[in-house]
C-alpha cells in the first residue's frame, strides 16, 4: 500500500464504527446480564441450616467473619445446634474467594448476587445478622451446580427455601462412572 493511504484506511475504520450500534449500557435503567454464578457482595444465609459451627469464620483467609454463639436445645437435621448471637461479615475487606461457602458443612451460607453496596464509610460495610436474616434468599449458583442444573437464575428466579439448597450429591461415583468420565472421555 502506498505511503499515506493508512490515513484513509483509518478514517474508513472510524467511519464504520460510526454506523455501529453503541455498546453503552445505561446503568441505572438498564443492566448488564449477570451470570448466575456471579459472586456478589451480599451473602445468602439460611438460619435453619446453620448450626453455628463457625467453619466459615475459621476458613476465611481475611478473618472478617465474626461469630458469637450460645448453646441452645433446638433440634436440627442431625445433632445439636448453637444459637447465634452475632454473625458479622466485614464486607469491606472481603475478597470474594468463596472459601466460607465451600467450607460450610451444612450448606447454610451462599454467595449473593449484589454489587451495589457502596457506602461513604468503611464502618457501614458490615453485614449483620439482622441483615442476613432479612435478605432475599436468592443464592448465586456458584459452588451450587445443582441449582444451575435446574436452570435457576438468581436474577429472575424465585426465592429458594432451605430444603432445596443442599449439596449436589453425597453418593460417590461408581468405578464405571469414573472410568467413563476420566478415561474414555479423554
Amino acid at each position: 500500500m502506498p505511503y499515506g493511504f493508512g490515513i484513509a484506511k483509518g478514517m474508513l475504520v472510524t467511519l464504520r464504527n460510526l454506523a455501529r450500534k453503541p455498546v453503552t449500557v445505561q446503568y441505572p435503567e438498564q443492566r448488564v446480564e449477570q451470570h448466575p454464578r456471579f459472586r456478589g457482595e451480599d451473602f445468602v444465609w439460611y438460619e435453619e441450616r446453620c448450626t453455628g459451627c463457625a467453619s466459615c469464620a475459621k476458613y476465611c483467609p481475611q478473618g472478617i467473619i465474626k461469630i458469637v454463639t450460645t448453646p441452645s436445645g433446638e433440634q436440627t437435621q442431625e445433632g445439636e445446634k448453637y444459637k447465634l448471637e452475632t454473625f458479622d461479615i466485614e464486607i469491606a475487606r472481603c475478597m470474594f474467594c468463596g472459601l466460607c461457602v465451600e467450607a460450610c458443612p451444612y450448606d447454610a451460607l451462599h454467595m449473593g448476587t449484589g454489587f451495589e453496596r457502596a457506602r461513604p464509610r468503611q464502618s457501614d460495610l458490615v453485614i449483620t445478622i439482622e441483615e442476613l436474616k432479612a435478605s432475599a434468599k436468592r443464592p448465586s449458583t456458584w459452588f451450587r451446580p445443582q441449582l444451575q442444573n435446574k436452570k435457576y437464575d438468581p436474577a429472575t428466579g424465585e426465592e429458594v427455601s432451605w430444603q432445596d439448597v443442599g449439596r449436589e450429591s453425597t453418593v460417590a461415583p461408581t468405578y464405571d462412572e469414573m472410568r467413563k468420565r476420566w478415561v474414555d472421555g479423554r
Partner: protein
Amino acid sequence: MESNTLFSNLNEIYLGLLPESLSWAAFLGTGFTIILILVNALLMLTAFGTYMERRVLGRFQTRLGPNRVGPFGLLQPLADLLKLIIKEDLRPVTADRLTFFLAPVLMVTSMLVVVAVVPFGNGSFLADLNIGVLYLVGIPTIATVSIFLGGWGSGNRFALLGAARAVAMLISYEVPMIVSLAGVLILAGSMSLVEVVEAQRLPFILLQPLAFFVFIVSASAEMNRSPFDLMEAESELTAGFHTEFSGMRFGLVQLAEFGEVVITSAILSTLFLRGWENPFIPSDWQQVLPAQIWFIGKVLFFMFIFTWIRATLPRMRIDQVMAFAWKVLFPLALINMFVTAALVVVWPDPNPTYTQLWVMVGVNWTVAIGCLACFTRGLERHGKKPTASVQLVQMPAEVS
C-alpha cells in the same frame, strides 16, 4: 456599505425610531446589534459544537456520549458552564499576575474578532474589509501570543514547554496556510471575502484541491487539534499551556479552542465551498434554501470533518510535525500558487467560461494528485531512514 443590505435595513429602522440629529447613534446602534447577534450566534454554535463533538466522538467510539442533562443531553454545555463558574479560581504563587489574567481573555478576543469579516448570507455581514483575508490570517496570530503569555505566566514548566511547542508549531504552520491562500486570492482577484464568494462560479475546492488540502491540514494545526495537539499532550505535558488554568479561566481557554473550530469551519466554507451559496448549482438559478441555512450547514459539515479527524489520527511527534510543515506543506503550497498563477497568466479573462473553468479543474487536480504522489513517495523513502541517529557510546570500564 451599499452591498451590506443587513446593515442598511437595520439602520433604516433605527433612523425611523430616532430623531434626525441622532443619526450617529442609529449607526452605532446598528453596528452593536449586528455584533450582538454575531457574537451570540458564534458562542451558541461553539457551545453546541462541544455537545455535537462529544456526541459524534462517542458514536465514533461506539459509545453514546453525554445524554443525561436535558433531552438527548442537549443542556450539557449549560451544565459544563455552570460547573466551570462554580469552581474555585486558583492562581499559583509562581504565576505572573498580569499575563495570567490576560492570556485567556486575549485568546477569546482574538477568536471572536475574526467573525466580523465572515459573510454569512447574501449582503449580511458586519464589515466587508477589502483586506479581509489578510485580517483572517493576521488576527488569529494574537492567539499564538496569548498562548505563550499563558504558558509563561503560569510559572509552571509543563505550561512553558507546551507554550514553546505551540509557538514553534503555530508560526511554522502559518506559512503554508497563507501561501495556500494565495492561489485562492489569485483566482478571486480580491482579498475581500464577499468578492471571494462571488467569484466562485465553481467552488474553489474543485479549482484548488491542493490549496484546500494544505489549508485544512495547517488549519487543524493552527487550532491545536488532533493530530497536531502536541502542545497539550496529556501523556507528556499534563495539559500543556493551560495546566494551571482553572474555573472560568479554563472555560475561556476551552471556549477559544472550540470557537476556533467554528471559525475555521466558517472560513473554509467561505473560501472553498462558496460561502452562503448553494455549492451544487450556479448562483443565478432558483434557490430553494435560504443562504444562512447553507452557510450553517457547511460549517457543521466541516466541524464534523474535524471531529472525524480527531477521532481517527494519533498525535504526531514534534520533529515530524515541523518537518511536515516545512518539507511537505510549504512546497505543495508554493507549487499550487505557481500553477494557479500560470493558469491565470494563460487566461487573464476575469470572467472565464465554464469550459475554461473545467479545464482549470482538470489541470489543478492532475497537479494535485501528481504532487501528492511524488511527496508520498519521497516520504516513504525518507521514512525508512531513521530521522535522528542515536549512537551507542561504549562506556569506559568501571574502575574498581
